[in-house]
């Protein structure tokens, strides 16, 4: 997705649901999209599935600019390439589970009519619904309905599965079981994208994208400072600048402006305390994904880029940052709590 913007117009004016969202998803990945209600998660999914169109920006899936397809081509493309799982299952209530799973096969025609029933039965068995095939959706539990919906999503053997809050209507045990099914799909080589507001389930995916007010939070910010509020993460996302230092370089931690924040994206920072003998005692090594704040620096500390490779940082500093920190005392609390999750380590 490149620079995707979606603006909805309603009686109250315009509402920007997605603001210049750029993201990549790689084959075989299990990615979660997390954010509060109204943060733009479903809109983002609808851009990927072609259920809705961006106001500007492009969405390319395996080199196809999907929003340039006609409605007809789009629906054929979608049927062959995507399996979509919805929060409210969206099974047709008057069809049995078997018929619901066969439906996409009938719509796309990839499998011969004679194969369809057997294939649908196999898919139902795979999601643990063997023996339930002749039941109507109303006769089975919510978790079973969602399992059937996953079987239906797999009907045409698509490479990509997209699920919008698939566990939003399930109790935690059924949610776990549904997530297990997704994990199995990753093992079978599928790419799975799950939208969820359940952080504990998101932790089971290999990568999480965090949305706030229609924008993606920089993943380094989200990773290093998980205890900041989403709005604070978004502010940092807007204000970080990349800075590089060669391997072994001395870093300017004694900057007159002590209010700065660094996020390590490559290489590492070695934090050293100068000793009276002229040597240094290593306090901590901060690898990629760590942060360091000016306020944490004690007198007599020095910082170097790690000796083996260049250091890449995302840096936020300057008068804006100082002002922002003054305005948001909670940031320091969030920072201290984040530090407890990423304590200084590597020292002796």
């Amino acid at each position, binding site marked *: 997705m490149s620079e995707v913007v979606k603006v909805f117009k309603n009686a109250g004016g315009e509402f920007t649901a997605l603001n210049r969202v750029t993201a990549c998803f790689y084959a075989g990945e299990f990615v979660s999209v997390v954010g509060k209600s109204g943060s733009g998660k479903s809109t983002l999914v609808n851009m990927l599935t072609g259920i809705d169109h961006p106001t500007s920006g492009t969405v390319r899936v395996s080199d196809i600019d999907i929003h340039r397809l006609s*409605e007809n081509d789009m629906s054929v493309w979608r049927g062959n390439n995507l399996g*979509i799982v919805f929060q409210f299952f969206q099974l047709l209530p008057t*069809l049995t589970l078997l*018929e619901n799973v066969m*439906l996409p096969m009938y*719509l796309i025609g990839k499998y011969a009519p004679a194969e369809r029933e057997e294939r649908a039965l196999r898919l139902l068995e795979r999601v643990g619904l063997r023996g339930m095939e002749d039941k*109507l959706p*109303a*006769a089975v539990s919510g978790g079973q309905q969602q399992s059937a919906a996953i079987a239906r999503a797999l009907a045409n053997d698509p490479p990509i599965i997209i699920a919008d809050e698939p566990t939003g209507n399930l109790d935690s045990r059924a949610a776990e079981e549904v997530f297990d099914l997704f994990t199995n799909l990753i093992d079978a080589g599928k790419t799975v994208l799950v939208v969820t507001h359940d952080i504990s389930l998101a932790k089971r995916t290999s990568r999480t994208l965090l949305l706030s007010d229609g924008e993606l939070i920089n993943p380094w910010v989200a990773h290093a400072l998980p205890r900041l509020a989403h709005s604070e993460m978004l502010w940092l996302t807007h204000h970080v600048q990349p800075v590089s230092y060669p391997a072994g370089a001395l870093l300017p931690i004694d900057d007159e402006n002590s209010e700065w924040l660094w996020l390590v994206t490559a290489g590492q920072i070695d934090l050293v305390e100068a000793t009276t003998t002229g040597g240094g005692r290593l306090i901590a090594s901060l690898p990629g994904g760590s942060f360091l704040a000016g306020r944490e620096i004690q007198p007599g500390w020095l910082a170097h880029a790690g000796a083996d490779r260049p250091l890449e940082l995302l840096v936020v500093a300057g008068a804006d940052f100082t002002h922002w920190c003054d305005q948001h005392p909670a940031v320091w609390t969030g920072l201290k709590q984040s530090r407890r999750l990423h304590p200084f380590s590597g020292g002796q």
Partner: protein
Amino acid sequence: MVTLVQIELAREAELPVALDPSRPNPLIRLRGVVKVYKTAAGDFQALKGIDLDVYPGEFLGIIGKSGAGKTTLINMLTGVDRPTRGEVWINGVPIHRLDENRLAHWRGRNVGIIYQSFYLMPTLNLLANVILPMDLCGLYRPGRSEQRALQLLRMVELEQHAHKLPSAISGGQQQRVAIARALANDPQFIAADEPTGRLDSGTAEVIFRIFAQLVEQGKTIVMVTHDQALARRMTRTLRLVDGCIVDGS
């Protein structure tokens, strides 16, 4: 028309078959319908012996509080659920005796069902959603089914949106598509479970008028509703309390 098979089935069930042409047969006849659900807390009796006749061309409202059994009752009429005891006859067919396959076959041709949550396929455009039941039942040839779907979308004033996805139209418009879809196989009777429950009052009125028109055209409609004002405009209402009809059977 009463067929020999229906007379045979009726005799077997000891139900009277009205052959007197001056008195119409009920389209829907329920006798002693009981529905028991097993729950963790024990058995729950959702319907406690319902007797009901609905005549062709009626617009019947089912009202009652949440949990009174309204949806269970409508599920008995559509064959989406089965009674624990009792009989459900629709146009002379004892649907409580049909196996799953025959029931699915019967349902596809004889009843149009409309739900509160529309249940349109989100990945199919409106036209494809309306064509779907025709293709599944095979009552119309492919070209003819598309023509008929467009005609039905025109009836609910959505023909110009035929190629849009459900997400691109409003909730009220989605419900109109669901009505068009329910009419796809030209069923005699339409069952609607709170069809206006998710719509604002202005949109609900539009939907209600479509139902009223269908009744004028000779359809029989059974509708569950919370809305007393709508219920008063139907030909008859019955009130359910704790699985029993207490008013207007």
